[in-house]
């Protein structure tokens, strides 16, 4: 277990290193010149050169990357070109909003997805099952920005149940979480359904039925806890999907998280911020995958860590 963890940690670090290298190289090749953006249109060539030297952007690629890495080790992600503040600070100040959205989204997808999957499995083969499975397909096929805009239109503009955008109260959280959650709910519903169907086939369920336990007791006491675990274990992997959607959903709802930060930075070629958010997202994804793998053998002892 310890050696396994050690090896996985080193692997994860290498992956993060690779992600940083690729992102850095991509941004280095960027045709848009960040210095022009900072200096403004009216800047003289001299000023532009000065700023370039100040930021160290006149150095060769390897030098720039090495400098970035050495700072990164001490948690320093550099300074934003435009916002004149530390990227680490910016990200840390935006992170709580994104984490809150993530919690909301996961709650939504579990609540929706698990109950849909459970009902579908119990009513397997009926019209209810079919309808729920079609619904889960619709969920995974719906583009998040369309879902977001439609939810906004119906529940914020028309019904005014929720605010149109922004951040602050629990009311602000509902629509963005739901938007993110609908996609995940589709996956969870399908996984939960097949996991539950597997469990309901097991001998211990038959035994429970044979000794005359009530249907409800069999479902909730015997089947559900066993069926739900492998599905819950997927949350780690889900983080990757979440990180993908965050840019879109945060920009639709004006949610002040790292997705919005990244989107603004991309439009203004604010390279340190783009790098920072990409690294933080990659870190979250790697961590999520690691968690999913480490938890797996606890949930299913047949799985051996290699």
């Amino acid at each position: 277990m310890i050696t396994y963890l050690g090896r996985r940690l080193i692997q994860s670090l290498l992956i993060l290193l690779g992600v940083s290298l690729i992102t850095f190289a991509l941004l280095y090749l960027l045709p848009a010149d960040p210095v022009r953006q900072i200096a403004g249109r009216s800047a003289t060539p001299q000023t532009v050169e000065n700023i370039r030297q100040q930021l160290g952007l006149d150095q060769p690629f390897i030098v720039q990357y090495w400098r970035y890495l050495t700072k990164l080790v001490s948690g320093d992600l550099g300074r934003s070109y435009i916002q004149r503040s530390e990227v680490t600070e910016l990200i840390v100040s935006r992170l709580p909003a994104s984490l809150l959205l993530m919690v909301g989204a996961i709650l939504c997808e579990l609540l929706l997805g698990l109950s849909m999957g459970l009902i579908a499995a119990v009513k397997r083969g009926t019209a209810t099952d079919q309808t729920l499975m079609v619904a889960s397909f619709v969920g995974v096929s719906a583009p998040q920005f369309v879902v977001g805009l439609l939810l906004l239109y119906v529940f914020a503009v028309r019904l005014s149940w929720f605010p149109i955008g922004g951040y602050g109260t629990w009311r602000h959280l509902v629509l963005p979480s739901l938007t993110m959650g609908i996609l995940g709910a589709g996956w969870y519903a399908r996984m939960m359904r097949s996991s539950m169907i597997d469990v309901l086939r097991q001998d211990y369920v038959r035994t429970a039925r044979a000794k005359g336990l009530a249907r409800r007791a069999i479902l909730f006491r015997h089947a559900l806890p066993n069926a739900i675990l492998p599905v819950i274990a997927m949350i780690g992997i889900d983080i990757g999907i979440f990180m993908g959607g965050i840019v879109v959903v945060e920009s639709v709802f004006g949610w002040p998280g790292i997705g919005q930060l990244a989107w603004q930075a991309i439009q203004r070629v604010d390279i340190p911020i783009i790098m920072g958010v990409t690294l933080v997202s990659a870190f979250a994804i790697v961590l999520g995958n690691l968690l999913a793998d480490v938890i797996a053998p606890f949930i299913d002892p047949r799985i051996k860590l290699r």
Partner: protein
Amino acid sequence: MTSPIAPDLTAPGRMPVKPRAGVWRRLVRRRLALLGLVIVAIVVAGAVLAPWLTGYDPNEQMFDGLTIEGSPLPPDAKFWLGTDLLGRDLLTRILYGARTSLIIGIVANGVALFIGTLVGVTAGYFRGWIGSALMRFTDLMMAFPALLLAICLAAVFEPSLWIVAMVIALVNWVQTARVIYTETSSLAEREFIDAERTIGASAPRILFRHILPHLLPTIIVWGTLGISTTVLLEATLSFLGIGVQPPTASWGNIIFENQTYFQAAPWLVFFPGAAILALALAFNLIGDALRDILDPTQRGRA
């Protein structure tokens, strides 16, 4: 590590490829798959026949396409789905937008499938340091937030239809590579492949005559499901304004252009949004049915 949807196509004891003759018949017998096929047929017909289906030009800004105050028109007898902010016929733009979605869906997904298969087969069959290098690279790509990477890439290049297709392909090959890799490496250890090697068959012969035909069902399933992902990604990039650029119509950029007005004119989001959803749903339904049909170990499960 595969995503939660990743079908387990590599279960041990998997049957070899079944005769393919019955696949189509079995596909159309499933109601949901049939629905998917019908939607795809409608979208393809709409895209191909666009100039004959509508009397308008997709980029023509019509005088009577706006109200006197200059706002877009709701759906009526003249403009069936209404008009957009610039007074263009929305139905016409959606029909032409179908071309964009289909072209990107086919090209980007085709390239992604090709890269994924190439990487997966190479790594799975030849192993060695090339194999592990390729798979480590794939792991690395899995850690990239796909959309963020696509956004960075799209921002790096001047966006055009083909660039957007390439960006999507560069992001989307990873899943395919993983699945093909696991499947190829288990195939490569089977006796019949060993036997081929013993009688002196060359690597290309083994790959093309024996490995690829066995991978075909997987490639078909992932190819179909992948179109759905591709369509969604293109729509998202175009919605952010870094995908297909106006005036070329794309379902995503129709929403991008009109979103400021969506509270007053929700049809400008609703109709293109429904089109994206329908096409993505269709390919998901077909892909899922194909998975059931082509992969016996999965039948009756998810």
